[in-house]
């Protein structure tokens, strides 16, 4: 087995990382893709330092999540991370399917929702959540429902972009479904 597979290394260049209580968000700046790693995937990814082996990661995963974990579970996580281009080196060839793994977890009697490493793509939420507050002139670029202002920034809570104009929230709700 190659070192890249046995002691994988996470990408550090060209990614932005946001660590949360139960998840890690990773933005691939080169591919313009955002990923969300659940706890199990995040633990494995954090320990992909090119030095920690798969069996060591299995022990770490078991300790950190307080649930049984084995090498296959770690390999599954590595496979998912590699497919999302979050590891250095070429992506692994497809080896595991989610269905195969769910079956295996059930056989082992593990809590699938906690232990199954998941690397999911994040779809940008509605612009109202995504952007802070823009001037009316920027409404076209920001999209409908983005908080906006005309003249004074204090209007941000009361106005939303709607068809390129900055309108009072009720009007924007009515016309643009904000």
């Amino acid at each position: 087995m190659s070192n890249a597979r046995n002691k994988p290394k996470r990408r550090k260049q060209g990614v932005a990382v946001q660590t949360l209580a139960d998840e890690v968000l990773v933005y691939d700046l080169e591919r313009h893709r955002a990923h969300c790693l659940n706890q199990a995937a995040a633990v494995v990814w954090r320990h992909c330092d090119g030095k920690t082996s798969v069996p060591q990661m299995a022990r770490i995963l078991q300790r950190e999540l307080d649930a049984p974990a084995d090498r296959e579970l770690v390999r599954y996580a590595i496979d998912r991370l590699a497919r999302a281009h979050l590891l250095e080196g070429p992506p692994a060839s497809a080896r595991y399917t989610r269905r195969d793994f769910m079956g295996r977890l059930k056989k082992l009697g593990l809590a699938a929702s906690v232990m199954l490493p998941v690397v999911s793509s994040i779809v940008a939420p509605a612009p109202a959540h995504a952007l802070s507050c823009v001037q009316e002139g920027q409404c076209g670029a920001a999209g409908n429902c983005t908080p906006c202002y005309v003249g004074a920034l204090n209007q941000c809570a009361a106005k939303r972009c709607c068809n390129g104009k900055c309108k009072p929230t009720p009007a924007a709700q009515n016309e643009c479904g904000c």
Partner: protein
Amino acid sequence: MLTGRERELLLTAARLFLGNARDDEALSGLSGLDWPSLSDVAAKEGMSGVLALQLERLARTYRLNLPLEPLSLALRGTFVANGALFAELLGLRAVLQEKRIRAILLKGGALATTAYGGQIGLRPLSDLDLLMQEADLPVVREALLERGFRTASRSGTLLTKGSVMFDLHHDLINASRIRRRTSAFHFDGEALWKEAVLLDPGDRSLLVLSPAHQFLHLAVHAQKHSFSRLIWFLDLALVSRQLDWEELLLQAQTTGTLRSVAYAAMGMERLLRVQIPAGVWVTLPSLSRLEARFMDAVVGRTAKEPSGELLVAFSIPSWIGKLGYLLEFTFPRRKVLSDVFPTGSASWFYLRRVGQILALALIYLRDALRWENPVEVPKPDSASRPAVGI
């Protein structure tokens, strides 16, 4: 307006982020909250990410079931939106390197990668501001146009591509919009570039301002917007950790930004419990009644724009200068208006601006008439603490 329990929780989250509060203060503030209103207020104050981070951590640590979905969504939204901005910046950096152009990343873009430790979901950004030499601006604009951007302003310095926006500057305080701002603030371009530091040691094309220049720039910018977003105080508090206050005050004297620093320091101390060295208060100017009222409104989160921008007049030495500034601010040149509001009418803007200022004057007059107690200029602890060298 931030009121009651929601206001307190938002402030506690900011203080927790800075290490200036304890978990139990936040936990005691969780009951009886109006959660939808908390989410709205957090978004308005630019604090959704920080609040979500703190509440998710508390919920996990203390096994609480909190309705955090709107805040978590907002954090993820900010993460994705900012990721798109930084992805475009990565592409632009390659161009800057190739053409041997240097640019300074300003404000939120710089802070998200430095002060917030690269946790880009915490600091909402509407655009990335880049400062460069005037001669380099057309080259960078051309490069962005080649990368699919479109100009969004007549001056061609605001460029957009979908939700991604770059704002190109060759002058830190936008004196091209209000020329008399230079009577108040005078940043030495040469010093800015000389003291700027590389964002990434391996790339000489992209820099950030030195901590002192960054603090002064952020203070002036936040004042311009009447400190209307709490996140700006958090930015200032994070940058202040890297400051040599003595050097900052020297720079503030040189650049004419002492009053802006006074407002920023006062807000940081009163809102976020940031400890400002006692000697700093001795050097900072005393505030007039009007400025003290403004700061009360800022701390109460009720300050109205354009109060802060009007207060820039206090930083201009002569009365003629002050008057000239106020006139230029109230009636900007038509060229400036057509750039900022390409679709609006200048006459309508002038009328509205006069109305805004009259309304503001009436509010202050009403408050002044109700104001029975004499003003105590809020120089926190300066009276009780001995002045020490800084």
